[in-house]
């Protein structure tokens, strides 16, 4: 066994970690706290830890401003992106993991370059093209665009999960008379669930967190929650409007906190997958 740490180092260690956890969580904690306060209490001098609670900002944002509609849009778009992205991503990931030719290598390298592209570059082309084609401001358009932008990352990650499934499994199924599609659907996919959940989480996050593309391709009744936040961002002039922004931001955050709570293990394995397994 390795020797125990000296007490002084242990203390330094704990202080550092305490400090980090505080820094990591405080901005969100404070945002939550002030979202339930009247503007005067939220920006009081000196700052207060306790103040009367009010739900009026949430009421205004969700009911009066119609945030529920944007929440619905976000649900449709994230679920749509998730489904399409995983379906075509699994097919491609499986193909890339089982094919030996150099073509697979080139697809992966080009995908890596695509992954590095700033999204605004494609947006410059999308704007005039979608306008001319008349597919502006539609769910399907945003979904397929998010799927495409997400694909390079998705196929890299799914491929690395498929590589971990031994090829003997394919061989056995093929010998038993399955064709490739049957092998894929009946033999490989049932043992792929951890990989699908992990990759799915990241596809979900990309679609849910996207601001740039969503705010530019959708408008009016079709806006997503994250894009709708921009209505409140540049409103320093009115404290009430700013408080609505805080309530909106808190509403966006809550589902993500549950996501991390329930899927922490998968998120960690997803973040580390590409790196540790090579």
């Amino acid at each position, binding site marked *: 066994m390795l020797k125990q740490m000296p007490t002084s180092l242990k203390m330094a260690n704990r202080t550092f*970690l305490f400090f980090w*956890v505080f820094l*990591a969580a405080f901005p969100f904690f404070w945002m939550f706290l002030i979202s339930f306060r009247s503007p005067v209490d939220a920006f009081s*001098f000196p700052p207060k830890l306790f103040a009367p609670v009010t739900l009026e900002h949430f009421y205004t944002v969700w009911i009066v401003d119609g945030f529920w509609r944007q929440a619905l849009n976000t649900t449709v778009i994230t679920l749509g992106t998730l489904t399409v992205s995983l379906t075509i991503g699994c097919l491609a990931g499986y193909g890339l993991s089982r094919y030996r030719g150099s073509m697979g290598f080139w697809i992966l*390298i080009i995908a890596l370059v695509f992954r590095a592209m700033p999204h605004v570059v494609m947006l410059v082309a999308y704007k005039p093209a979608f306008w001319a084609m008349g597919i502006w401001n539609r769910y399907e358009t945003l979904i397929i665009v998010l799927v495409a932008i997400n694909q390079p990352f998705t196929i890299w990650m799914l491929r690395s999960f498929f590589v971990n499934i031994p090829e003997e499994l394919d061989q056995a199924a093929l010998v038993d008379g399955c064709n490739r599609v049957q092998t894929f659907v009946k033999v490989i996919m049932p043992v792929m669930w951890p990989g699908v959940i992990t990759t799915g989480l990241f596809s979900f996050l990309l679609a849910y967190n996207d601001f740039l593309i969503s705010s530019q391709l959708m408008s009016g009744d079709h806006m997503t929650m994250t894009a709708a936040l921009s209505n409140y961002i540049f409103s320093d002039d009115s404290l009430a409007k700013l408080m609505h922004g805080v309530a909106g931001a808190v509403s966006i955050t809550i589902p993500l906190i549950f996501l991390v709570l329930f899927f922490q293990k998968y998120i960690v394995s997803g973040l*580390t997958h590409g790196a540790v397994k090579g």
Partner: protein
Amino acid sequence: MKKKTFFAFVGPSVLVMLSLIAVPLLGVFYLSLHTSHVKTEIVEVKSVVPLFGGLTKTTVQKVPQPVLDEKGQPVKVWEFVGGRNFDTVADPGGLAKALSKDRSQTADGQPARLGQKLHGLYRDVTDIDFWGALEFTLMYAFFTTPCILVIGFVLAIAVNSLVQWARGPIIFASLLPHIITPVVGSLSIYWLFLDNAVVAALLEQLGAGKIYFLKDAVTIRALIILYGIWHVTPFAFVILYAGLQTVPKDALQAAEVDGASRWQRIRYIVIPHLGALFSFITLIHLMDAYRIFEPVLVFGSNLFANSLQYLTYYILHFEDNYAKAGASAILTVIGIIILLSPFLYRTFRDQKGGH
């Protein structure tokens, strides 16, 4: 797997990427070389002008008018202009002027010191939007990268020395800045630093005076960089923490038996073992840092700090100039290819060597 089967499997994915990433890239390239204007034609307009006493005079004027298509929309014409859009964005003339300007004397006629010369040069170059955006993008990348590597590594070591049950909650809290929507994360920090918000108020109470964080380019840039460190450190931490679990225990024990100190074990066993992970994190972070957008949108808004992706967004959204946005986008793409080229070259060489 046969080639035909392979193509069937990767087909849909490749098709989506080609049609919505590769083709748009070509489209942007096309846009960047052209400029658009509304097609006009000269129309003769007759108008009757009253003179006096009921007399009128008919005049015929030639007036340019937009040509309308069958739907009544003005017809747009795209004209090839070569590199003119690139000239507008990158402004090589202005850059050359800034570089060649005589800075040997200050405004009041004193001989300038080297520091003053460099400062003047820096100011003139970064005054051009594109170079200013490039400057802050690179500054952000080079300040944040070492910080996230070091803090992430220290965190990983610290968490690794804790008892098992304490690790989960710390990892949970650490994931928040990385997972939660970047716009929301940026805003949550922005709201802390408003003039009358909690941080400024606490500092004032502690006697630091009134600090206006969001009124000054230096503090705004510092906040964006701090946001970047806060947002990406969890990523480095989680990867390095996972890597720590794979360090061979017997090597560490052998080193301890040989009398190696704690620091020596970290320096000579753990860090070399994690070497590949450090380069992986650096690569991924450089790609992400290069396209930093949300914090610049929230904090900088073009005035105090700019980034390449924000510059293109600004031209597209506020100036509504597709051709100029295209040129700016293509310059951004060239930058990312330069940034990735050492890595791509190495991968390419490994691939050739492996076959």
